[in-house]
């Protein structure tokens, strides 16, 4: 009970305080509201235009395949979006970018801006007028740009200006120029990487050639230490290998022709077995002679013998081949007497070719044996294995690098192609800028509501302040603290006790409120009638749409 009475007492004191200072509360509310009313009418309306762009990571071909085949999607970290928005904001607000926007929209042609720039130029005579005007504009525009993330990879660029057309042009061209510049930069980067790759490819090729030369040189050096009683030596090893390769090729060519000869014989009416002539001993003897002659000729070639000996050997080979052919013909006629002449000739040609092939094969095998003998001898020298391994390893490494780099160069070509196709599109405009139909700021309703709320709050604050600094005595307790004498009586305030102050002192609250309201109405009327352009904002900017329209 006692506690509730104390509570009632305190509540009553607060209510009396409010009642005592109601004038200040009312005045503060009216003044705040009128001030807000003037402010929302004097502050220039802002028109906001926005463009939304989508930024995607580069699409790899492998990812596209994954998506088709049902591959997993990467979970994006929100920090990547924040970082991306920060990067985009930094690039858009950078001086070079905004300078380009300003020049594209021809914003430096505003006469008021030029006047302002001239004044600044007086203090900086070394700067050109156009440069100063551009810097002024860039500073103004930079503060009006707002960049927000609207989701994964989606960024919204907003511009506020007092003119709707200007804000639209700025939003439109900032978004479009940003995409142009970003795409151009990336393509240029790919091209420069490719140029670098081409040069690097040439370097890798040179390095591989040098490594192979080093290996060959080392191999040649080793051969000197291993002179053997073979026909193949250091000086003629490459010749021997080349000759061997040629023999194999000739053999393959001959084998390719022999099928036709066999068919021709059959077409001529030959129907017996080819094996009779192929296994004929006399023919075999003639073939052996030819093989030996070919062997001799090969050895003469690889040992670079004198021309006379080689001519003699060649003549011998030719003669023996003729002898072989004639001998085969005779044996065919002997072995296949029932066949027609044409068929016999065809069979003889087939059999001769077969014998020729066999003799070449034998000669090639002999040569190969010589080459292998030579290699086996210097490879078995243990002190040379390590160095040989190192050089061979180096050649292998250089070859792998070159192959890898060639593959990357191909990939770079693919990337560049991908960039210019839909598959590789990185930035696009989702929602283009539009001319705003209504002002976006100030939000008059909200400001006035806030004023209605803040007014009493401010009033309470002032009232509390006046109460605190009020020197007068109010309660009996306060009075008794000063004058402890007995309170003989407490009497109500009678009309005779009231001092009749002047009109203003008695009615200062309503008079002041009326003055504030009158001032507000006057200010708003003047603004509406005479100062339609009068506002608290800075100098407006103008923009010329490169596609036609001006903002003013």
């Amino acid at each position: 009970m006692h506690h509730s009475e104390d509570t009632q007492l305190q509540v009553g004191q607060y209510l009396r305080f409010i009642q005592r200072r109601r004038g200040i509360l009312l005045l503060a509310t009216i003044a705040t509201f009128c001030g807000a009313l003037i402010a929302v009418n004097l502050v220039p309306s802002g028109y906001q235009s926005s463009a939304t762009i989508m930024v995607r990571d580069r699409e790899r071909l492998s990812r596209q395949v994954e998506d088709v085949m049902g591959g997993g999607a990467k979970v994006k970290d929100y920090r990547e979006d924040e970082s991306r928005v920060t990067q985009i904001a930094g690039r858009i607000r950078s001086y070079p970018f905004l300078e380009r926007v300003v020049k594209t929209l021809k914003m430096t042609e505003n006469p008021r801006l030029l006047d302002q720039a001239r004044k600044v130029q007086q203090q900086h005579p070394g700067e050109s007028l156009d440069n100063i005007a551009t810097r002024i504009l860039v500073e103004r525009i930079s503060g009006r740009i707002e960049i927000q993330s609207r989701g994964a990879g989606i960024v919204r660029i907003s511009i506020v200006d007092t003119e709707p057309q200007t804000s639209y042009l700025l939003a439109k061209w900032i978004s479009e120029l940003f995409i142009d510049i970003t795409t151009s930069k990336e393509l240029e980067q790919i091209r420069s990487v490719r140029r670098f790759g081409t040069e690097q490819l040439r370097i890798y090729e040179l390095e591989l050639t040098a490594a192979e030369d080093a290996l060959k040189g080392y191999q040649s050096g080793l051969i000197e230490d291993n002179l053997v009683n073979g026909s193949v030596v250091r000086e003629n090893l490459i010749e021997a290998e080349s000759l061997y390769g040629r023999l194999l090729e000739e053999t393959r060519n001959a084998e390719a022709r022999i099928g036709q000869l066999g068919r021709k014989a059959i077409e001529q009416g030959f129907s017996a077995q080819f094996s009779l002539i192929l296994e004929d001993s006399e023919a075999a003897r003639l073939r052996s002679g030819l093989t030996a002659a070919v062997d001799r000729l090969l050895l003469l070639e690889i040992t670079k013998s004198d021309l006379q000996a080689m001519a003699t050997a060649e003549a011998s080979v030719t003669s023996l081949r003729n002898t072989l052919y004639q001998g085969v013909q005779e044996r065919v006629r002997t072995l296949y007497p029932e066949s027609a002449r044409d068929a016999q000739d065809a069979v003889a040609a087939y059999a001769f070719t077969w014998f020729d092939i066999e003799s070449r094969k034998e000669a090639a095998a002999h040569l190969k044996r010589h080459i292998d003998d030579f290699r086996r001898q210097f490879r078995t020298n243990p002190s040379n294995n390590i160095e040989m391994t190192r050089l061979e390893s180096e050649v292998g490494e250089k070859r792998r690098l070159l192959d890898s780099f060639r593959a990357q160069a191909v990939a770079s070509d693919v990337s560049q192609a991908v960039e210019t196709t839909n598959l590789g599109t990185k930035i696009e405009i989702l929602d283009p800028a539009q001319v705003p139909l209504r002002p976006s700021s100030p939000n008059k309703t909200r400001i006035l509501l806030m004023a209605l709320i803040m007014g009493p709050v401010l009033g309470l604050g002032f009232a509390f302040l006046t109460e605190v600094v009020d020197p007068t005595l109010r309660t009996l307790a306060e009075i008794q603290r000063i004058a402890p004498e007995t309170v003989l009586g407490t009497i109500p305030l009678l009309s005779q006790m009231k001092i009749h102050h002047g009109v203003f002192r008695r009615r200062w609250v309503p008079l002041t409120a009326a003055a504030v309201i009158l001032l507000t109405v006057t200010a708003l009327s003047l603004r509406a009638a005479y100062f339609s352009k009068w506002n608290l904002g800075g100098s407006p900017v103008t923009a010329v749409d490169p596609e036609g329209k001006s903002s003013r």
Partner: protein
Amino acid sequence: MKLLEDIHMNWAVASEMQKLQARVWHQAQANGMKVILLSSALRGEGKSTTVSHMGVMLALNPERRVLIADMDLRGPRQHHEFEVDLVPGIAEVIRGEASLETAIRGTEFKNLNLLVAGHSDNPAEVLNSPRLIHIFTELRAQHDIVIVDTPAIIPVADTSALLSIADGVILVVMSGKTPKASLTRARELCLGMNANILGLVVSNAMEAAPELYGSQYYSQYGSNPDRSKKSRGKATSGS
């Protein structure tokens, strides 16, 4: 008369005045005091109104001889309260322009007399006149209690001159108006003159003690004239 209207129609006023006059009379009788000054630190704190109302309440007892003397020569009020002429008053008596007998007037109450301030261009001369003491000696002889209305203590020195002839002084304080420093100074001045401060009267009680004025103490009585008359009767018998 507005004065009587307040007493008849406003129960709170009547009640508080009744209590005030009872205490003052009791103290005066107990200590043999006859001349009681009412003053305040600053102007407009309700001392003149308190003087007039208290004088009326004291006079409700017909056996008392009460005098209200208005010594506020700079801003006399009592002639307004009782709706009489300003002259002749104490100033004329001191200047010899009128006798004390002619200056002392009767009121609606047979036992309540009024001595108005009169007109004076030089209040200091009047208040410092040696005749003042003789006048008050006569007033003491003729009345049981003299209630003196004075100017505010701080702005002028008039009250300081009167403190020496008074038996006691009551300070009137208006809640919500009297600054702390002013009350402090007023007390200092009184104590410096060796004045006998009988107590305080706090006006604007709604501000000073709202818990009393908002409670059942007065609300059940309201402002019914019939009930007010009944309280008059009680106040008379209880003094």
